[in-house]
C-alpha cells in the first residue's frame, strides 16, 4: 500500500476520475484540428520551406556559402548542433532519471518531453551532415566500413566519431522508450474509436498500438521493459553530452581544454532541455486545456530544476574563469580575458545574464508560479544557452595562436537559413505530434489519479500518534 504524506501537494487537480483522464487527453486527437493549429502549422511549413531552400543551396554550392573562414572553422553549425542536442536531454532525463528517483510529477510531462527530445536530436543531426557538404561521404567517415581507399578507416581516436555512436544510441533508445509508452494510449484511443463508430481511426490506432490487449501479462511485460529502458537511458543521458563536450575538451585549444566540461555540459543540457519543455508545454496546456494535469505545481518543480541546473552551470563558469587565472597559463588566461573583454564580450555577457542571473529570479515564489514569467524566462534561458555554445566555440577560435590570423565570424543568410530549417522541422513535427498523438501519458497518469488528486484529501498523512492535529 502506498501512503502519500499530507505535506505533498496534489499532482492532478480538478477532482479528475480515470474516465476524465481518457476524455480530456483523447479529445484533441479525435476532434478536427483547430484554427490556431492550422495557423501555427502554416507558419512552421513556411519556415521549413525557406530553410529547405537554404539547405539545398548549401548542398549544391558547398559549405563556402556559410560564413566560416580559415580561422573560425566551426561556428553556427556546431553551435546549433550542440544547442539542439542539449535540448534533447530533458525528455530522457524526465522519463528515465526521474523514474528512478520515483518523481511522480514526471508523468504529466514525460510524453511531450520525449517527443521534443526525438525531434531535437534529429534537428541536431542535420548540422554535422550538412557540414560534410557531400552527404554520401558521411557514410565512409562515420561507419567503420572497408573501402576502396586502402587503409583509410573511420578515426576511432576522434571524439566526433564517438559522438556518432553516442547520439545514434541515444536516439534509438529514446525513440523506443517513447513509442513503447505510447502503445497503451494508442489502444485507449482505438477503444474509444470503436465505441464512437470511427472505423478508420480504430484501424489506424489499432495498428499503431500493435493490437495491444491490455491483459495483466501484457502490462507486466510492459512494466519490465519500461524499467530496463529507464536503466539503459540513464547512462545515455550522461554519456551523450559528455561526449559532445569532449569534441572540445580533448583538444589543446585554450578555453576548450578544461576538465570540468563533461558534467558541466550535462547540467547545461538539462537546463536548456527543461527550458524548452516549459516553452512548449505552457502553450500546449493552454491550447488543449490541460491545466488540471500540468498544474502550476508542475511548472514550479520544473522551474526549480532550472534554478538548480542553472546554478551548477553558473558555478562551472566561475570555476573556469577562476582556474584560468589560478593556473597562470598565459593562453588560458587570455582566452578568458578575451571572452570577458574582447570583441565578443557582448555574447559573453548575454550568456552570463541569460544563464546565470535570470534563472535566479525563480527563487522568488511569485515568479516561479507565474506562467508569463516562466514562459519569458524559458525563452531567455534558451537564448542564453545558444550564446554559451557560441561563446565557447567562436571566442576560442577567432583569436588563435597566431595573431596574424585573428579574425571575426560573420554569419551569412545560409547560416541563418539552416538554423531556420531546424526550427521549421521541429515545430512541424511537434504540431503533428500534438494533434495526432496523446500529449500526456494517460496510462501513467491514471495510476496516480487516486493517490494524488484533490478528491482524496484527508485520507492521507494522518499524524503518527493520534491527538494533536497537524497545523
Amino acid at each position, binding site marked *: 500500500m502506498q501512503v502519500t504524506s499530507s505535506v505533498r501537494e496534489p499532482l492532478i487537480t480538478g477532482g479528475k476520475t480515470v474516465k476524465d483522464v481518457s476524455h480530456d487527453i483523447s479529445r484533441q486527437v479525435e476532434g478536427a484540428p483547430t484554427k490556431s493549429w492550422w495557423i501555427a502549422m502554416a507558419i512552421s511549413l513556411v519556415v521549413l520551406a525557406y530553410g529547405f531552400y537554404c539547405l539545398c543551396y548549401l548542398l549544391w554550392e558547398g559549405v563556402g556559402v556559410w560564413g566560416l573562414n580559415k580561422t573560425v572553422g566551426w561556428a553556427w553549425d556546431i553551435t546549433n548542433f550542440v544547442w539542439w542536442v542539449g535540448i534533447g536531454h530533458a525528455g530522457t532525463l524526465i522519463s528515465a532519471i526521474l523514474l528512478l528517483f520515483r518523481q511522480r510529477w514526471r508523468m504529466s510531462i514525460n510524453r511531450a518531453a520525449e517527443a521534443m527530445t526525438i525531434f531535437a536530436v534529429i534537428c541536431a543531426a542535420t548540422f554535422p551532415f550538412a557540414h560534410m557538404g557531400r552527404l554520401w561521404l558521411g557514410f565512409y567517415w562515420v561507419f567503420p566500413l572497408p573501402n576502396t581507399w586502402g587503409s583509410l578507416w573511420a578515426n576511432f581516436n576522434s571524439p566526433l566519431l564517438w559522438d556518432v555512436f553516442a547520439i545514434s544510441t541515444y536516439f534509438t533508445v529514446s525513440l523506443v522508450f517513447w513509442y513503447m509508452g505510447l502503445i497503451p494510449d494508442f489502444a485507449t484511443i482505438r477503444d474509444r474509436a470503436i465505441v464512437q463508430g470511427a472505423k478508420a481511426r480504430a484501424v489506424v490506432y489499432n495498428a499503431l498500438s500493435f493490437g495491444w490487449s491490455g491483459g495483466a501479462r501484457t502490462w507486466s511485460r510492459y512494466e519490465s521493459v519500461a524499467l530496463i529502458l529507464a536503466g539503459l537511458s540513464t547512462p545515455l543521458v*550522461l554519456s551523450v553530452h559528455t561526449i559532445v563536450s569532449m569534441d572540445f575538451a580533448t583538444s589543446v585549444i585554450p578555453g576548450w581544454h578544461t576538465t570540468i566540461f*563533461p558534467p558541466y555540459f550535462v547540467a547545461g543540457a538539462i537546463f536548456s532541455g527543461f527550458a524548452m519543455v516549459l516553452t512548449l508545454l505552457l502553450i500546449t496546456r493552454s491550447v488543449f486545456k490541460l491545466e488540471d494535469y500540468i498544474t502550476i505545481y508542475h511548472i514550479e518543480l520544473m522551474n526549480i530544476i532550472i534554478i538548480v541546473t542553472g546554478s*551548477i552551470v553558473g558555478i562551472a563558469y566561475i570555476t573556469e574563469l577562476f582556474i584560468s587565472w589560478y593556473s597562470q597559463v598565459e593562453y588560458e588566461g587570455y582566452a578568458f580575458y578575451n571572452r570577458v573583454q574582447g570583441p565578443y564580450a557582448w555574447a559573453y555577457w548575454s550568456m552570463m545574464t541569460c544563464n546565470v542571473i535570470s534563472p535566479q529570479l525563480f527563487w522568488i515564489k511569485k515568479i516561479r508560479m507565474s506562467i508569463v514569467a516562466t514562459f519569458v524566462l524559458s525563452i531567455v534561458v534558451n537564448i542564453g544557452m545558444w550564446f554559451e555554445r557560441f561563446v565557447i566555440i567562436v571566442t576560442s577560435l577567432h583569436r588563435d595562436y597566431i595573431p596574424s590570423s585573428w579574425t571575426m565570424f560573420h554569419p551569412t543568410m545560409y547560416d541563418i537559413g539552416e538554423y531556420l530549417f531546424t526550427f521549421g522541422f521541429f515545430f512541424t513535427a511537434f504540431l503533428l505530434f500534438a494533434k495526432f498523438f496523446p500529449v500526456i501519458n494517460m496510462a501513467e497518469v491514471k495510476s496516480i489519479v487516486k493517490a494524488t488528486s484533490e478528491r*482524496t484529501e484527508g485520507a492521507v498523512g494522518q*499524524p503518527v500518534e493520534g491527538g494533536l492535529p497537524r497545523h
Partner: protein
Amino acid sequence: MAHHSIVADELYIFRPETRTKLFYLLGVGIVLFVVGLIMAIYGGDGHHAEEHAAVKSEQLVANATANAVDQEEAHAAEGHAEEGGHHGPALWVKRLYTTLWMNNTFFVGLGIIGLFFIAIQYAAQAGWSAGILRVPMAMATWIPIAGILMLILYFVTGHTIFHWTHADLYDADSPAFDPIINGKGTYFYWLGSKGGFPTFFILRMVVFFGGWYWFFITIRRRMLAEDNEITNQYWYANRVTSTWFLIFFAVSSSIAAWDWVMSIDTHWFSTMFGWYVFASWWVTGLAMITLIVAYLKDAGYLKIVDSNHLHDLGKFVFAFSIFWTYIWFGQFLLIYYANIPEETVYFIERMRTSPYSWIFYLNLILNFVLPFLLLMTRDAKRQLSTLKLVTPIVIVGHWFDFFNMVTPAVMQEQGGVGFLEIGTLLIFLSVYLLVVLTSLAKYPLIQKNHPMLQESLHHHI
C-alpha cells in the same frame, strides 16, 4: 486507506561492549602508529627512499622516450624551488604530517556529508529516508571536531604540506622565486603579504567550517524539536534552511577542495577537481550511512527499516560509485588525451611512479569494479550481508583515493602505506565512531513526527 502504523520511541544504547571494542581498535591504531613512527624515524624510510630513487632512475633509463623527458621536465618545474632553496624537514616528519592531513581531510567528508544528506532529503522532499535521518545527523557531529583539527593541523603541518607557504617563492631576488606561484599568491595571502600569514586561506577555512556548523545546529535543533510536537512547521523550516545550506555547500565544497587538496600540488590545476573531491566524499558518506544503518539493524534497532530502505541505500552507493568513476574518468581522460605537460605530471606521479601506481589501479578496483559488480543485482542491494561487505570496501577505497591525492605531492617518491598510515586511519576511524555513536545514543533513533514517516513505513519498491 488510512492505514497508519504507530511508531514506538526507540533509543540507541551505546553498549560498553561496543565502546570497549572501539577502544581496542583505537589501541591497535595507536600501537601501529607508534611502531610505524619508530620505524620511520630509525631508518626504514631512508632505505625506502634509496630504493625508490633507484627504481626511478632505472625507469628513466629504461624508457628514454618523450614521456621520460616530460616527466623530468615536469619534475624540474615542480621541484626546482625546493632544491634551490631550503631542505625540508626529516622524512619521518613529512610522512607523519602527510598522513595526519590526509586522514583529517578524508574524515571531514564523513562529517559534512551527514549534513549534506539530510539537506538533500529535505530539499528534495524525500519520503523514504525519514526513518534513518538520525544516522547522518549523528555523523555530522564530527564537523566541528574536524574543523578544529584542521586549523591546528594547518599551523603544525602546513609548512610541510603546502609548497606555497615558502616565503622565498615570492621573493623576486631569491633563486627560489617562482613566477607561477607568485602569480597565484593572492589566492592564499590576500589581505596580507605573500609568504606571510595566509589570511585569505585561513579565513575561508574558518568561514566554511563555521558555516557548516551553524547550518548543522540550526537544522538539528528543528529536527529534535519536532520530536516533541506534532507539526509540519519544522519540516517546512528545514526545507528552506537546507536549500540555503546546499547553496553554501555548492560553493564551499569546491573551494575547500582547491584549498585543502589541490593547492598541495601548487602548480597543478583542474577545473573538475572540486567536484571530484565532492564525489569522493559523497559516496564515502553514503557508504558510512549505509554501514551504520546495517550495524544498527544487526543489533536489533531500526525495526522500521526493511529491505526496501536498504535497497535505496544500496542504490545510492551503487549509483554514486558510478558517478565518482564518471568524474574520475572525465578528469583523467581529458588530461591524458590532451597530454599537456603541466597537467599530465599529476597522473605521471600517481600512475607511473612505483610507490603509488598500485594504489592508482587499486582505487579503480575498490571504488568502481567491486561496488559495480557486487551491488548490480536487486537482491544484492536488499541484503544486509552484501551491504556490510561493499560499504567498507568503498570507505577504504576512498581512503586510498585521498591518499593518492595528497601523498605524492608532499612525499614525491618517498611515500607509502605502512604501519604509520594504517595506524592513523584506525585512530581517526575509532575516534570518529566513538563520537558518532555517542551522539546517536543521545537522541531518539527515529524522528517519529517527521511528516514523511508514514511514507517511509509503507515504502515498497
